[in-house]
């Protein structure tokens, strides 16, 4: 992927349970870059990315991946357009084996390409290779999160959106994963990251955004945010 591509969100608004939880959020993420999305619990990070992935209906605004409009598309079409979401809470297809779980996410490509993708996923998560025939519902919490990450990697998306990257993962695995994301970004993938550990996220990210009560309150370089921790603290205490 030579040319820089980008996902642009304009004036996004989302309602949940009859209540507006996202107000007028606009931002852009670029390929080859890691962007961190930070904020307190309930600030609306998940709602934002779920709307972006087509999982939540939007109450207003537009979304685009380069020339393709993502507004109003179904989740599978957005995924196929090149934006892969790893949803919060390590959800897996419990009645399928680990390997089927990963393969089902590789919707394109020849069988051999899929094999390759599978091998690559097993490289990042050797834990899964040992359990490929096991039902995903029998996995431990962290193992499920690995499956969810593997599903995103194998799709070879242009953009990866990860909600709660380190959730339930042991530190050693988080390290491996961080490494893999860095490599992905170097290979031209755009990554949007939600992460409870702000330091981890800021270490990884080139770019950072902060949400507070459904609004974007910071959008800039991650280094700036690191240098001014009061922005983040303010946002965390606001909720």
């Amino acid at each position: 992927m030579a040319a820089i591509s980008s996902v642009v969100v304009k004036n996004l608004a989302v309602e949940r349970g009859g209540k507006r939880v996202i107000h007028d959020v606009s931002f852009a993420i670029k390929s080859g870059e890691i962007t961190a999305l930070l904020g307190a619990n309930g600030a609306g990070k998940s709602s934002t990315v779920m709307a972006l992935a087509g999982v939540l209906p939007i109450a207003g605004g537009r979304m685009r991946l380069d020339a393709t409009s993502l507004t109003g598309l179904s989740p599978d079409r957005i995924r196929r357009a090149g934006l892969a979401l790893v949803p919060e809470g390590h959800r897996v297809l419990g009645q399928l084996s680990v390997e089927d779980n990963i393969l089902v996410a590789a919707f394109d490509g020849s069988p051999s390409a899929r094999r390759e993708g599978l091998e690559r996923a097993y490289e990042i998560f050797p834990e899964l290779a040992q359990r490929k025939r096991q039902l995903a519902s029998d996995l431990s919490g962290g193992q499920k999160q690995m499956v969810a990450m593997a599903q995103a990697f194998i799709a070879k998306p242009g953009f990866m959106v990860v909600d709660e990257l380190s959730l339930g993962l042991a530190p050693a695995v988080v390290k491996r994963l961080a490494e893999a994301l860095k490599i992905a970004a170097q290979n031209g993938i755009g990554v949007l990251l939600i992460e409870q550990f702000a330091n981890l996220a800021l270490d990884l990210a080139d770019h950072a955004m902060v949400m507070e009560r459904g609004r974007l309150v910071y959008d800039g370089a991650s280094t700036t945010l690191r240098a001014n921790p009061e922005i983040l603290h303010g946002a965390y205490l606001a909720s």
Partner: protein
Amino acid sequence: MIAIDNLVVQFGGVKPINELTATLAAPIAGLIGPNGAGKTTLLNVLSGFVRPARGSVALNGEQLLDLAPLQRVRAGLRRSFQTEQVVEDLTVSGNLAAIADHVVAPLNRAAAIDAALAFVGLRPVTDKLGQSLNLFQRRLVELGKCVIGNPRLILLDEPAAGLTEEEGGMFRELVLRIPAEVGAQVLVIDHDVELIRAMCSETMVLDYGKLLALGPTEAVLADPNVRRAYLGEF
């Protein structure tokens, strides 16, 4: 005090816990280990949802495995789950009442619920439905349920997962108050090493169902085996 002796759990061909022997005495003990090490499984054994193939577990000298899960709850065992389990269509106080109904005498119920609400600081949202709570509030409800009815042992499975550092900090303060104010021993699983370091005076590390290390938290975290297997340092 939890005394585990030669515990083996088997699911078909896998043994998520394999000949584990350990004694946990600290008021707040930590349980860490790589993904799939058997931590949740151990909690399930303690709370009775998994039957071990062999071995024994004693809580303050009393054999735990003889009791049915329900009896363990009545005897003062509480636990939270790795994914939070707040009931969406019950209010906060309803969620707490749901456990108080079974472990507190009828006359003391209202007071017990109120005390738990006060302890976790959820009084302002007493009448909010579970479905409208944010994750932090949900985790607090779960913790509130654990402190109702004179618990003796509280098992927390990644209770702070998904919380921000601030929230994690507040949560930690609450847990630290439990041994003194509630009088129960706490066993907590988490992958946040800083949180474990701050809460637990003693920590056990599992790796593939085996005991990797057990002792004072600082010492354990400094153990090179632990650093390699768990923290991924070389």
